[in-house]
């Protein structure tokens, strides 16, 4: 059985039918990527898994236990951590307070302190600015903070929504290195990326989303070789 299982979910925003029966699964330790055009429903899929939006139909399960019936904060307690699109750091909190919030659901003080040091060594810039309000950070620094904040939750499943958006190439590499490192440590990752090329390089498998439906699912290798994927998402014609 898969670790995370999304079964035929339909999610609406009022009357907008954003997800029209999405099914996907993620096995323990895998990196799975979701690719698709703007508005395809990638973020909505992640939001439905993390409980910010509720599916009208269908189910989300972790190790067979339903998640879609739980409020968002309980889903976090299950180890499902989302790094949302557009960062969403707390601008009126300092960098270190933001990281603390990332560990809100945890009570293991010592391990939290260790993880904080890990995040600071991963992103030394954050350490330099730890007492600065997050709202005053640059866009790229905020993205580092959002990622670091996600790591502070000790994710079992990490949901990353466009973690490389707006970052300089060096930082994109850093983020993808981090993803691979987490992968090696056994973290399960569901990755949404505009940068489909990089996403398909690190991922084991991928799903292609189009207007709220999954139109293709295969191994990353096969998707890279797929002609229509190349045309639509990899810029190869």
């Amino acid at each position, binding site marked *: 059985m898969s670790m995370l299982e999304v079964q035929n979910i339909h999610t609406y925003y009022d009357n907008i039918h954003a997800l029209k029966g999405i099914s996907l699964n993620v096995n323990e330790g895998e990196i799975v990527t979701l690719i698709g055009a703007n508005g395809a429903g990638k973020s909505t899929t992640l939001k439905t898994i993390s409980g910010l939006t509720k599916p009208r139909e269908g189910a989300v399960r972790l190790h067979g236990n339903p998640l879609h019936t739980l409020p968002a904060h309980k889903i976090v307690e299950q180890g499902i951590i989302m790094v949302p699109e557009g960062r969403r750091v*707390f601008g009126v909190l300092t960098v270190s307070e933001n990281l603390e919030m990332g560990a809100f659901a945890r009570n293991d003080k010592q391990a939290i302190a260790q993880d904080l040091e890990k995040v600071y060594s991963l992103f030394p810039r954050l350490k330099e600015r730890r007492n600065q309000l997050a709202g005053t950070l640059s866009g790229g620094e905020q993205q580092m903070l959002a990622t670091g904040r996600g790591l502070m939750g000790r994710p079992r499943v990490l949901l990353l929504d466009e973690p490389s958006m707006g970052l300089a190439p060096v930082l994109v590499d850093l983020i993808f290195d981090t993803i691979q490192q987490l992968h090696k440590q056994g973290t399960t990752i569901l990755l949404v990326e505009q940068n489909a090329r990089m996403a398909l390089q690190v991922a084991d498998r991928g799903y292609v989303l189009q207007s709220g439906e999954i139109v293709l699912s295969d191994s990353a290798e096969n998707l890279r070789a797929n002609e229509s994927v190349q045309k639509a998402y990899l810029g190869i014609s």
Partner: protein
Amino acid sequence: MQLVRRFLPLVIGIYLLLFFGPLAGFDFFRIVGEIYNKPSLLLQQLINGLANGSIVAIVALGYTLVYGIIELVNFAHGDVFMLGAFMALTVIGATGVTETSTASEKLTAALLAGAAAIIFCGVINVIIERFAYRRLRNAPRLAPLISAIGVSFIVQNIGLFWGGLRSFFPIMGVNSAAPKAFPDLIGRVDVFKDWFGLDLPITLSTKELMVIVVAAALMVGLRLLVQYTKIGKAMRATAENRDAAKIMGIDIDRVISFTFLLGGALAGAAGLMFGLYNNTVVFTMGFTGGLRAFTSAVLGGIGNITGAMFGGILIGLLAAFSDQYFSSRWTNAWVFAILVTVMVFRPTGLMGENVGQKA
């Protein structure tokens, strides 16, 4: 030319004030004369204003905390403050202390009354949020606002009813709607003269000292709580972006409940302080007191904790000054004139700033 245009409104404003101000008690030359003849009176009014303003500020914190987290003007908050005063009066009545009891009996009664008022108002506020606001959290803004006005009427009528229960609580007196005498447990000992032997033209009574010290302690306590505790940080995070807070594992319903608990507890404490300071409470005090507190919160920049404290004290000082030098009948008009002026020139309030993006 530029300069003239810039200062013209100011000049016209001063001109109008000098001519028509006296109708509302603002007679510039008389006031300057009075202050010149007896400057100590001005200082005395500053002390009174500071004491009254401290109570207003504590109530204002409740408006600002709730607005900060769910962007609702909780019109029922002033009435919860009134319930605090009634609860305190009821408990003091039950302990049977009078103005002639010993100091330790009075202190015990006041502490009991304070504890009861704080717990009672905190719990009431949580219940109000749970039943009158929570379901409307994602509704158009007008809906919870109207609900709040409804709750305000209900709570006020509970006060009226409570005030009529003289067979259970003789301290309520015969008439349910009439102002009730609140025992003077502190007395008016002059701190300067009787404690320090200073012979000053102004007095600082023990009552005023109590109000100012307790209010300052509550404000410092609240600041520390919001700044340094885990729940305080969660409050700030929830206020800024509810969805982002949820995916940190924060139970925002609990954080919002806690915010109402805090606001209610502060209103309860303010109710006791008001009773002990003014020695009279009435079921409509929530409306008038609430209005001034709300004004203070807006003046300071609603949602801003420091702003609410500052605004409350400013309003207290202004009201004391107006009572003394303008005319007490015009005090509310002056308070609102200041509010309108500030809103026109600084819509975000004196200390308000646009922070972060809202969810």
